[in-house]
């Protein structure tokens, strides 16, 4: 008996994590902006979807783009405010933590968003009459969007805009002195890295069928951050590999290990990987990547 439900459920979460990782990768991997509050943006997307689908009964084809729009708007606002102030490094980190915290606090304490009860149940999304309700449905939907996001990422990474963003990461000063408007570029990085939060947040809300403020707390932003760094910053395959880690590791440990040990082992894995491969498993110069390219050359 193949546990179809189990596998497709994992696959769905994996694809949602992938999408988040792609978004964070643009901010962190390409532009080098250490933003540690990604789930704050995801919350915007997820709650937009939740509110629009429950209170206004809007269909999936409407909620998805609107969630992306809201997320990008907020990202633009936050990005502009932060970049205008030339925030970088530690300041940006703490500022984004603050952003995440404020978003969750608003969701928990303000009366408009369901507070601790969250919002739900969220109806199943429908495309052209087909209702996506089972894990199989969602995993297909999820993978479809991963493909789209990955494709966009590939195109971006090869474009002039993409190269410009990467230049920001390597040497912001050089970029600045060669006439590039770094502020505008950084804000753009924020916006470009946020529509994935909209897509991912939307799918997340539909799949879990409810949204609660605790899903978007700072600790989960750390998970997204982890995915990008472990997988390999600034690469297209990196986020995919990175998303494998929080998906596979808890499952692999589930059987034999009690729950507390799971997080411990998970964090230790992070520390070890980071010590040996600071740019990530598929990072620019990592051993795995070198091995793969050597293999590729041998085959030919």
């Amino acid at each position: 008996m193949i546990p179809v439900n189990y596998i497709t459920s994992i696959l769905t979460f994996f694809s949602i994590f992938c999408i988040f990782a792609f978004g964070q990768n643009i901010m962190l991997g390409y532009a080098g902006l250490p933003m540690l509050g990604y789930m704050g943006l995801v919350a915007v997307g997820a709650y937009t979807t939740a509110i629009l689908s429950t209170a206004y009964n809007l269909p999936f084809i409407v909620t998805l783009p609107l969630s992306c729009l809201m997320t990008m708007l907020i990202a633009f606002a936050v990005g502009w405010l932060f970049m205008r102030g030339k925030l970088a490094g530690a300041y940006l980190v703490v500022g984004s933590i603050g952003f995440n915290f404020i978003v969750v606090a608003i969701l928990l304490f303000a009366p408009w968003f369901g507070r601790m009860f969250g919002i739900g149940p969220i109806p199943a999304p429908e495309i052209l009459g087909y209702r996506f309700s089972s894990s199989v449905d969602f995993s297909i939907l999820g993978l479809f969007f991963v493909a789209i996001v990955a494709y966009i990422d590939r195109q971006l990474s090869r474009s002039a805009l993409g190269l410009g963003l990467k230049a920001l990461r390597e040497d912001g000063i050089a970029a600045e002195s060669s006439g590039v408007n770094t502020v505008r570029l950084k804000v753009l990085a924020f916006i470009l890295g946020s529509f994935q939060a909209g897509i991912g947040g939307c799918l997340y809300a539909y799949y879990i069928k409810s949204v609660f403020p605790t899903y978007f707390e700072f600790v989960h932003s750390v998970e997204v951050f982890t995915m990008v760094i472990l997988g390999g910053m600034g690469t297209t395959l990196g986020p995919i590999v990175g998303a494998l880690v929080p998906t596979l590791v808890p499952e692999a440990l589930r059987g034999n290990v009690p729950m507390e040990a799971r997080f411990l082992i998970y964090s230790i894995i992070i520390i070890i990987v980071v010590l040996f491969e600071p740019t990530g498993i598929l990072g620019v110069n990592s051993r795995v990547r070198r091995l793969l390219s050597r293999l590729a050359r041998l085959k030919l």
Partner: protein
Amino acid sequence: MTGVEAWIGFDGYNGAMLAVEEINMVGGINGRPIQLINYDDGGSPEGAVTVSRKLIFEDGVVAGILNQGSELALASGKIFDGENIPALVPWAGHEDIVKGGWCFRVGLTARAPGKAMGYYAYTVLGAKKLACVVTVDPYEESYAEAMKEVFTKLGGQVVYDKLVEFGEKEYTAMLTEIKASGADVILGPHDFSMSIPFTSQARGLEVMTPIMFGSSSCVPEYLDGVKDVGELGGGVFVLSYMVFEDPLTSQYAEKYEARYGKAAGPTASYTSYDCIKMLAQIIEQAGDDPAKIREGIMALKDFKGVGGTIAKYEQGECLKPIPIYSIKENKFVLAQLVTELEYISPF
């Protein structure tokens, strides 16, 4: 084999198993052993639904015991209602769970304790002004609401009302304001990691009014945490679901500890034990037809459980006297058992 049950969290499961073992040891019900089938709902409503369906359709249970968390119990409860199988709710507190007609609560909603506390504060403690600081938690907010309602209906006034996030331990600002507001009774947050600093800070700031807490503070850790401070000033009054001194309850605690090697834990284990015992009693008399079991539950009167005595059932909610404890010589001492129907009814 009479099949029963569902999933309730470790302490609840242990409690229920204890009951099952006791019953089966003396030959079961009407000569047949009782079987407890337990599944893990994985903490999600979908899991709860999947598991409920499994129990009803695949395992053919005659009655269920629902999960601890309210959202989960809501989901499972609907399945049991829909399939006409009775279910008992040992702990979850959301009002809607028992509205379907086939689910019956063995624990309490948050409202009944809240009302009892409001009554106690006004009538017994003689307080006229209530200050309220509780966590942003559906359960706590619910009983705080109930307490405020009763308190104001009886003639009191709420002079301070704030919510804090879970885990908050810094109360000096609020307590100073409460002192200035002239409140003569305070309702504090009930989790003991919060109520301990709340009490210490209050007494340290010379706020000497009586303080009341919900049942999560009725634990030894609270006593340890407030050692010398618990009896200062107006004293501390803590709600409980069970009367510990009741021989049934204390015997259960001993049995549990002997069997499992640890303390009987929170109310859920007591009430889960009671669920099994109740069902056993009813099945013994009415047989194992689910519809008859349901009638039996509705007709129950004065069931003496280890988690408190159930006076009767009304619209799915049980009516139980509610004990309130105070502290003397570092121990919990029963201050009052609220039995007035008006103040123990969740409606």
